């Protein structure tokens, strides 16, 4: 295991509602390769082996959250229209009326922010196996939300991922910076933290599961 700096190069804007976690991305690749269904909130999690070192207590992997700077944002919308024309054309005669203002057929237009990042880059620091990480990242071509509609596409014709060895900045590498600030959600008792905000977060994947959240030190 080596100290690593991992850089993703985006081709376009990205939709981020929460920081991107490298361990979560790698765990997703492992599950995608094995075609595992994601667990329901609160379900027991089957262990997922990823090439990033676990902290001595085994609670989380030693990697920072994605570091980036938003340069500009634009407002976009996600639309859903009930296929009522097709209900009339292809549906059974049992379909008498369709309420498109409420219920299962409710149409929507949900706004979201699409961000352009400085230099189109996201950077992570971690302690891990570079070859294992490179192998898994080869299957990651999109990042963030709304990937199915092309948001967060990486520079697939250039160098989408760069995994390189780097110098450490002290004992806190890669989860606490040189000033003692958290570089990811950390348990409050984590050594070396000087002053950090506190918030309810997960310290390991699945990060979307709100039922597992606990009070953490956050960047």
């Amino acid at each position, binding site marked *: 295991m080596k100290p690593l700096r991992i850089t993703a190069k985006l081709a376009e804007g990205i939709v981020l509602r929460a920081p991107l976690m490298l361990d979560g991305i790698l765990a997703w690749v492992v599950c995608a390769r094995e075609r595992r269904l994601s667990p329901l909130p609160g379900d027991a999690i089957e262990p997922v082996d990823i090439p990033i070192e676990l902290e001595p207590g085994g609670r989380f992997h030693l990697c920072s959250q994605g570091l980036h700077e938003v340069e500009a944002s634009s407002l*976009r919308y996600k639309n859903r229209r009930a296929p009522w024309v097709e209900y009339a*054309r292809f549906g*059974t005669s049992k379909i008498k009326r*369709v309420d498109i203002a409420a219920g299962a057929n409710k149409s929507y237009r949900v706004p979201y922010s699409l961000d352009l990042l400085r230099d189109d880059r996201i950077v992570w620091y971690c302690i891990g196996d570079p070859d294992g990480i490179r192998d898994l990242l080869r*299957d990651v071509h999109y990042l963030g939300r709304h990937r199915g509609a092309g948001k967060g596409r990486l520079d697939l014709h250039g160098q989408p991922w760069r995994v390189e060895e780097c110098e450490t900045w002290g004992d806190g590498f890669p989860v606490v910076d040189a000033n003692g600030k958290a570089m990811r959600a950390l348990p409050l008792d984590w050594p070396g933290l000087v002053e950090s905000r506190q918030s309810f977060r997960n310290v390991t994947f699945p990060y979307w599961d709100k039922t597992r959240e606990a009070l953490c030190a956050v960047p």
Partner: protein
Amino acid sequence: METTRFEMIVRAAQPIAHHQENLGNQAIFARKLVRLPGGERVNVPYVSGDTVRHALREAAFYGTLHEAGLLNDPQLSEGALRLLLAGGMVTGKGDASVVNIDRYRELVALFPPLALLGGCTDNRVIPGQMHVDDGNLLCSEMRHLSPPWVMAWLESNGERLESCRGAIEEVQRVRMDPMLRPEAVKLLSDGAKANVEGRALVAESAHDTGDAVAAKEGKSAMMPRTHERIIQGSLLWIGLEARTYSDLEHDSFCFAVACMLSNFHVGGKRGTGHGKLEFVAGSRVHFMPASASLESVGRELAPKTGDLYKAHVRARKDDLASWLRSGINS
């Protein structure tokens, strides 16, 4: 697991009307913020990935129903239609549109494009395995973001890149008021005719006297409006990518792409000669472990595209019909 990516250049065989908002009577074409080399930012017209993705979803739906012989008398249930055309809905148990996970798996086995596009079961969303990029206008502002093979194709075919400003035009249309046509007025009943003529007289005298309120009351229903559109002949590039786990899934992806390309329409105003795109050139990128290869493809993608999938659908058409008509609503 295999990841296959198609990238293709398409030409606007008709003007494209894909609007993001209306300002008064003017419809504004969708634009996205693009960062130019050096840091400057511009708004560039584009066709959203959601639109292209829905075109793919519709193509898979119609193509499969056609192969299963269900288009003549479909009689599909509401839940099935919603699942296949809009991804379904997380509704919870007890609702008519509940699909439980085993049934979802069975439906995916019968209709593999569902696995690619994703959908909802009773209490969870099953993510798709497909990424569909925006339709990106080929213009000087997008040069640095276009795939190298696209730029090489443009150069070898003598296509010049110009600013996106030249690719948008504004056109005006007018919805006419039939009451302004004397031959149409003659068809009215006596009472209606008297109303129309009375309104015309009010408008005329209001015009003479400068009475704005009366002029508004006597105004015709004629409605001029303008809209922006991408000009006919413009070139765009799109990317479609899918993660597949079997030959059948891969073939169903190729089948859906081929169906979409055979009658590719995006945006609105399709009833008035807008939205048709035609395939010009394409590349297939195979992302295999440790390598990626690029090969040229035609509109048919490969000689036997869809054969496996079509045979699969024909062999299970009765099961598919029974699921789509009743099995999902339980």
